[in-house]
């Protein structure tokens, strides 16, 4: 019995990675849920928007690195982030002007907008591969660890090490800052309130003189910021590979639906729920149980519920359960 080591091992392999991944999913799901709330369709291009934002940020990061501009212990990508957001926002506003506005004016059925977003996804997907190629890109720099395995072992004297990578710490901190800023904006500012009013009841909002085009434009800008931040954080934490962002679509949608489409709080809760479930179910608990079990009772197998290849199955299973038992999501999203 060695509960201390067990807790440290659990934190190292489940809690910290889960929290970082959850923050990334939550940011992605916030973008999906905002588009759903204001524009009333599920945006299939969101994963590729994240990839596009991350790509632009990477290009700026490389430019800064070549000019010798760094950010000390923090990754240069954080400096490049505002530029990435700006370019992505321009792209999304351009897409809205060229593509979505037409259907909005026609009051097209949501499913038509979903198909249109699939077309946009195709284009963004090609654009990203066209510009940066399909390969793995490394762009993280600065200090690698907040504290490394050796630091922790020397400090605590335990067998197990707790590692906190800079990217994980930055992910969580950035996500908290972004979420606080978003909620302040939605709840305290005039523009944010007009957005919520528009989301709640479009006709009533129009009657009260809210300019719908302005609300839509601001939504796209916020979505660009959220998608770029989520994409960059994911890229810093893992690595940047364009096809992975398409695969993120499923957990991101699952997070948004589990929380309740259209509900920002739900998106955050859903993101963490999906992330922790994925990490917990696919983690091999042999080590943790080995510390907890009394002598001689250590498990032989890996005690892994599902192989990591099936992590999509976890978000899918949660999605199905929620659709079956509570289709509006945990936080009562907009509609069934």
């Amino acid at each position, binding site marked *: 019995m060695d509960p201390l080591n067990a807790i440290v091992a659990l934190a190292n392999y489940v809690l910290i990675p889960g929290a970082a991944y959850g923050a990334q999913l939550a940011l992605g799901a916030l973008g999906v849920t905002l588009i759903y709330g204001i524009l009333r369709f599920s945006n299939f291009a969101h994963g590729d928007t994240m990839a596009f934002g991350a790509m632009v940020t990477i290009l700026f990061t490389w430019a800064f690195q070549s000019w010798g501009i760094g950010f000390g212990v923090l990754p240069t990508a954080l400096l490049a982030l505002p530029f990435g957001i700006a370019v992505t926002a321009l792209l999304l506003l351009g897409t809205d002007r060229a593509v979505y506005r037409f259907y909005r004016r026609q009051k097209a059925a949501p*499913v038509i907008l979903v*198909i249109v977003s699939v077309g946009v996804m195709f284009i963004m997907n090609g654009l990203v591969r066209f510009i940066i190629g399909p390969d793995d890109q490394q762009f993280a720099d600065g200090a690698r660890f907040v504290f490394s395995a050796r630091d922790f072992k020397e400090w605590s004297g335990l067998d197990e090490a707790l590692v906190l990578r800079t990217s994980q710490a930055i992910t969580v901190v950035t996500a908290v800052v972004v979420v606080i800023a978003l909620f302040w904006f939605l709840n305290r500012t005039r523009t944010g309130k007009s957005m919520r009013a528009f989301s709640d009841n479009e006709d009533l909002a129009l009657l009260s003189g809210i300019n719908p085009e302005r609300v839509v434009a601001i939504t796209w800008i916020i979505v660009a910021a959220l998608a770029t931040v989520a994409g960059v954080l994911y890229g810093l934490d893992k690595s940047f590979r364009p096809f992975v962002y398409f695969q993120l679509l499923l957990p991101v949608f699952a997070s948004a639906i589990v929380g309740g489409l259209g509900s920002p709080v739900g998106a955050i809760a859903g993101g963490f729920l999906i992330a922790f479930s994925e990490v917990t179910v696919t983690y091999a608990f042999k080590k943790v149980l080995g510390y907890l079990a009394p002598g001689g009772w250590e498990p032989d197998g890996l005690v892994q519920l599902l192989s990591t290849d099936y992590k999509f199955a976890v978000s899918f299973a949660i999605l199905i359960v929620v659709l079956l038992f509570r289709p509006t999501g945990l936080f009562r999203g907009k509609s069934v």
Partner: protein
Amino acid sequence: MNSMGMVAVQAVVLGALGYFAGGAAVALLLVALRLLAFGVTASGAAGRADLRNAALFAIVAVLLVYSGATQGWNVALGIFNMGLISAIMALGVNMQWGYAGLFNVGIMGFVALGGLGAVLTGMPPVAEAWAAGGLRVLAGLAIGAATIAGAVVLWKRMAKGAARGWSMVALLVVGFFLFRFVFDAGVAAVEAVNPASTGYLGGLGLPVLIGWPVGGLLAAGAAWIVGKTALGLRSDYLAIATLGIAEIVIAVMKNEDWLARGVKNVIGLPRPVPYEVNLQDTASFVQTARDLGMDPVEASSIAVKLCYAGLFGIVLIALLWLSQAALKSPWGRMMRAIRDNEVAAEAMGKDVTRRHLQVFILGSAVCGLAGAMMTTLDGQLTPGTYQPLRFTFLIWVMVIVGGSGNNFGAVLGGFLIWFLWIQVEPMGAWVMQIVTWPLPEGSMLRDHLADSAAYMRYLTMGVVLLLVLRFSPRGLIPEK
């Protein structure tokens, strides 16, 4: 790093130039197609839609013949065969979208399941693997299925309350560990049998043609699970659920080596048609080829492709006839009534969710059938090559460009878009060469752009989809 970044920035500028040239060419082609078709109509009997549609098909035929004359008949027949399969997939999707307005984003999964069906039927069984752990694997699967069925029964029979929830969770947890206990050992034993060449249970050893309907049945089963949960809710939910099931189907096929060797691929699937080598050894065939003035090797490959074309053509014509009959029947009218106004149809006493489930399963089964046919044509099952952009969204482009709701439109879209999909890549490489000719030989930018030409297809398909949706939402052959 800097030069890489700069290259990328320059690539945006030059690439955009080259890209718009390519995109514009495809768009112009589509516009020309419509104008040409209208021109034929105007010169012939006025307003005769049938003539226009026939002209559209004739144009596709001319495109194929042209590529046959310039690139060789082998290439043209290869495109034609995949065009037939694409047309069948498009028919399946058209049932779901065109008849009923259901948005299925998981076509890839159903197509892959169809391929699995072909393998599980057509490949010979591996006796040692069955002896080593086949029954144990089956027992494990049975326990898993029984657990889920038991949970469903429990949920339906017990009274509402906390007891019901907890007992269901307990049943699932116990069932899961029992399943893993029985299943894992069986899988390990099966996969240990000669892993380099088999390491899986093999199939039933039946003729591969039987595998086609089996593939359709597998896809139908998956569609039933998805449809049962996601239909009756918002239309977006079905899209997301199908996206999920497709990813899971591919993940299972990649990782469950005992089933179909995973990423090690099953190769050498038995064929329903003769082999080229056998034809070349047949004296009468060689003589006929010589008499026709053809090289026997090329003639054998063309003959095999023609056999496939015949088989696929029979399936396509049968399905097209059935789909037309269904669309014209009271059932088809009811489906379209539901699509156009669910509330009104429900008020008339139609069970909307049930009908949706029915057509969703039918359409998915057709996609599975096409998937089994494609695996048969390839002679191998390679789970690693299933990409959603290629197997899901390309089919959507086919249906929407062809004309959603019209079976002939779906077939036309299948042929036309598949032709473009194959031909855009060399076109892209060619455009890139023109755009980059002022650049010095061996410059990084030139290489980068040449490498990127492959991704022009995605861009082009996206642009085509958006243009058609915006300017011609009813497609080339509109619904009547």
